[in-house]
């Protein structure tokens, strides 16, 4: 069943079009990859879906309800959670406090602070962050901070999770670990996941389908193998002979 519908969505910033007439749908329980060069509009797409910005035109429908135009907190309560490409931990709080706070809000807010704490502890355990629980969130390693982003998003109890370049800057071992974690939480929390990734092998490994963006437009969509063979995609990444 279709969980998310992005219909002819465009976003312009004062004359510069970040996204132009992008449309696709996402089935419940699936994992969709978003691919594209820097500046292609991927993060803008996430910001639109999560409600951080409003589309200039077009419609976004989540679980049958229109979410485009709603504030980010309402979108979060509807069941969509996102991570930030440039991590945004709540630096003045510990790692545990970060996740506990997130657990108090969102689509499935915890009934009490102790319930939130318990949920946070479980999530930290799953993501391998338990040993950092009492550290200030600003003081941990980048890879731990990236996991923290995921933990916070997860704590809100979403149905749709938007992961924005969570592998960037990770070593190959860390990438593999993150891949397993993502698959694990998707299964356990029965999530639908959208993944933006530059680390190509991770994107290909995770995604059932991929949407390719280029200069704000969708140029291809399909299973990873088909997309890799697509002439438009190759032209965009490798350049055409005629410039």
């Amino acid at each position, binding site marked *: 069943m279709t969980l998310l519908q992005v219909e002819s969505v465009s976003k312009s910033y004062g004359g510069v079009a970040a996204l132009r007439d992008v449309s696709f749908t996402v089935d419940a329980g699936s994992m969709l990859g978003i691919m594209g060069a820097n500046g292609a509009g991927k993060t803008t797409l996430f910001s639109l879906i*999560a409600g*951080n910005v409003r589309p200039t035109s077009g419609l976004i429908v989540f679980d049958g309800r229109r979410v485009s135009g709603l*504030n*980010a*907190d309402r979108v*979060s*309560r509807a069941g969509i*959670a*996102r991570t*930030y490409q440039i991590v*945004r931990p*709540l*630096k*003045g*709080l510990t790692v545990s406090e970060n996740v*506990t*706070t*997130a657990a*108090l*809000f*969102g*689509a499935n*807010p915890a009934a009490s*602070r102790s319930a939130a704490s318990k949920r946070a502890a479980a999530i930290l355990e799953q993501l391998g962050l338990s040993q950092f629980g009492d550290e*200030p969130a600003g003081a941990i390693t980048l890879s731990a901070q990236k996991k923290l982003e995921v933990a*916070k*998003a997860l*704590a*809100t109890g979403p149905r749709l999770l938007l992961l924005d370049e969570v592998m960037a800057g990770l070593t190959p071992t860390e990438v593999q670990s993150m891949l397993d974690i993502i698959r694990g939480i998707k299964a356990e929390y029965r999530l639908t996941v959208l993944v933006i990734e530059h680390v190509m092998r991770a994107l290909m490994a995770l995604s059932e389908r991929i949407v390719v963006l280029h200069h704000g437009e969708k140029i291809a969509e399909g299973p990873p193998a088909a997309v890799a063979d697509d002439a438009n995609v190759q032209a965009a990444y490798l350049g055409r002979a005629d410039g």
Partner: protein
Amino acid sequence: MKAAFWVIGAGLAGAGAAGLPWLIGDYYLTVALNLAMWIALAQSWTILSGMAGYISLGHVVFYGLGAYCVVVTWQAVPLFVAIPLGGLVAGIFAAVIGAPVLRVRGPYFVILTFGIAELVKYIVINIEASSGQASRLLFGTPSVTDLYLIMLALAAAATGLAWTVRRSRLGSGLVAIREDEEAAQTFGVPVTRFKVYAFILAAVIPGMAGGTFVLRSTYFETTQVFDPVISFSIVTMAIIGGSDDARGPLLGATFLVVLSELLWSTLPQLYLIVLGTLLVVFVLFLPGGLVGLLGPNRHRLVR
């Protein structure tokens, strides 16, 4: 065990404070009245400005509105109605201006609150001027003892309110807003609503405190109850004391009252000079305030 200790300690302190009028003379009782007032103001202020980081430099506006409300209804309405009414008026004002005002970020919010306080001040001055009264005289005001007991209750209420909010879901949301408002909104914190709630909660007790304190003198002057020095003192108190938990405003208020006792009667300007210098020193070197010196301080008002 620890909780029992705190409860007993607070109870003893409360009994001692309530018994003061029978232990000390009127002069020191007035000092205690001042202290209770500043505690009530500073604790209330931290609900928005400490926890969410939206520093209000115009908090006197709530104080002044409460005072004006009590003065205008003086002798037409019994005191136990007038003072809460003052708080209500302040709260309604906060509710009405809250949403648009809280959309302004950072330092512009700070000067905006200052501007609003001055604007309201001049409007009230004009209202009073056009009704032909430069100041009003108040006859039959309550005794210092009565005022002190009311103010003590307000100080306790403010401290309790700040403590409660800090531990509530609202408090967690406000702290998240202070750390990173957009990220907080992304994981579901209803930022606008929470900021407005905090604004209202931070306004009500100062409204009542203003309504109470204005009865200490027999005349009412608009410039006094809307004096920006009051706003300045609250901010300085919070920064010197530290605003991260209930102890901060207590420390800050005590410090300021002691300082003012030492300096005000001799040279009021010197008191303000010292205060201004302390603000500068603390902002530059001790952003955690005195409370920060006592223990690890992660949630600082000034970074």
